[in-house]
């Protein structure tokens, strides 16, 4: 049974959700606008006997996660854009060593030190690999505080299930806002055996070892071995692509224009759909919940629908997810773009104006 709705800050909900998901190991370094995740953890972990370490840097934090995950424990870190850039080597290592881990990026405006207000400029970094080599993070984009909670819990399950890094890609809006959240009485935690964990070989009663030594590594110096390893990784990613795509589709059945938007932009767009309907323009939306794996098929299917005349991609960046949208649409319909930069959010009016322009401009 769902409990009462509490008004809570997004960042704190992430922390609470992680704890509910059984995560007892948080390693982080402060940065706006995600600091409340840390503050919450700093208090709670001490109270419940978990581990909270304020690392000396984001690099150290991600590598502490690497260590705790190697030992077989649920572990997480959180940061915001510049800090996430610093974690890229570590993220690539986690991919190479196939460790389950959860990383939260409450994105702020960049590049460089940039600003501290919300943005979605780290989409490419998160989904295509900001680190080196061929790897994929599962990337989840919640759109409300309630989803921050549910999807954070889910993130830990997915991480363990696939021995993969799961990134929660939020933006400053989600992290800083308060919204009602209803916690469940019991979390749907799935427990996975981790026979690979490096937690000590252990001794039998006769003094012999319980098992051979385990090793966690990402180096395979022989290219043939590394190629096999890489192909296995790719096969795992294919499996994830098949099983874990999540998205929300609204009003596709009669939409003339389909908005693609995630997280904060999808919230604003939802209101626009209502407004457009008042103007007699039928607008639908596909909201990717997993940014990777991307809902390519859903978008391709929508692109094949005769009622759908165009797509409008809305992002808090200069146009990043739009590439994945276009790859899915594959030329079948035009794809337009509206974006805001620097920490500003698009208004409903801006988006509506764009919709009207597309609709009227004979472009539909």
């Amino acid at each position: 049974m769902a409990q009462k709705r509490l008004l809570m800050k997004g960042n704190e909900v992430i922390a609470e959700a992680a704890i509910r998901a059984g995560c007892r190991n948080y390693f982080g370094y402060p940065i706006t606008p995600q600091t409340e995740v840390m503050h919450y953890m700093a208090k709670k972990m001490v109270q419940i006997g978990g581990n909270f370490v304020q690392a000396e840097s984001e690099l150290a934090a991600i590598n502490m996660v690497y260590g705790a995950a190697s030992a077989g424990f649920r572990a997480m870190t959180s940061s915001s854009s510049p800090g996430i850039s610093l974690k890229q080597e570590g993220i690539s290592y986690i991919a190479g060593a196939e460790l389950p881990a959860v990383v939260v990026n409450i994105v702020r405006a960049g590049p460089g030190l940039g600003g501290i207000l919300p943005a979605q400029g780290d989409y490419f970094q998160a989904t295509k690999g900001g680190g080196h080599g061929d790897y994929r993070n599962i990337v989840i984009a919640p759109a409300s505080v309630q989803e921050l909670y549910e999807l954070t819990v889910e993130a830990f399950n997915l991480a363990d299930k696939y021995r993969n890094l799961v990134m929660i890609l939020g933006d400053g809006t989600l992290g800083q806002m308060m919204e009602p959240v209803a916690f469940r009485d019991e979390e749907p935690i799935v427990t996975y055996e981790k026979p690979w964990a490096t937690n000590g070989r252990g001794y039998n009663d006769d003094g012999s070892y319980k098992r051979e030594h385990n090793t966690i590594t990402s180096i395979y110096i022989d290219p043939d071995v590394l190629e096999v390893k890489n192909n296995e990784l790719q096969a795992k990613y294919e499996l994830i692509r098949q099983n874990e795509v999540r998205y929300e589709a609204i009003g596709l059945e009669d939409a003339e224009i389909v908005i693609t938007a995630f997280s904060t932009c999808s919230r604003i767009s939802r209101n626009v759909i209502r407004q457009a309907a008042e103007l007699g323009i039928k607008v639908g939306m596909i909201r990717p919940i997993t940014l990777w794996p991307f809902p390519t098929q859903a978008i391709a299917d929508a692109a094949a629908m005769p009622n759908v005349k165009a797509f409008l991609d809305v992002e808090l960046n200069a146009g990043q997810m739009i590439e994945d949208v276009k790859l899915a649409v594959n030329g079948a319909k035009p794809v337009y773009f509206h974006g805001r930069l620097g920490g500003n959010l698009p208004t409903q009016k801006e988006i509506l104006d764009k919709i009207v322009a597309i609709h009227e401009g004979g472009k539909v």
Partner: protein
Amino acid sequence: MIDFSIILAGFGGQGILSAGKFAAEAALYEGKEVSWFPSYGPEMRGGTANCSVVISDEPIGSPVVNDADVVICCNQPSMEKFEASIKPGGYLIVDTGMIKIKATRTDINVIELDASGIADEFGAMAYGPISMLGCLSKATGCFSRESFEKSLYEVLPERRHKMIPGNLAAFDKGAAAV
């Protein structure tokens, strides 16, 4: 009610952010969708503070408010900054104890209240914004006095329940001014 939006603004330490939370809690108590969003932008260290509250019967779009139904101003810089953000027909609630200038717009409803006076009277800064919530509730009905009261009991820890009567009194003083 769809995306009814309120901006509360003033100096840091005046209790602006808390007042916003109380408003959101009261509306939540009524089963509404609510959001609260702090300004954590450039002015953070400048001594000013503001937040947006949205109340709605539908899932809320942006928690960041550009055009507000109501703006509650507790100091002069806020008034200079936010008066323009009020939707025509909306409300501007002004702490006349802090703000000496007058509203310039004529297409909005202006409610004046000596909130800092009330705060002085009640002995703590935080009562000022609370009294302005009284105006808000009375003028717009975006949440009721009952909900405000209930939410105080919900939100405040036991040991602080003794402060509830004072808050209600300040609230009522504000409401009476409308």
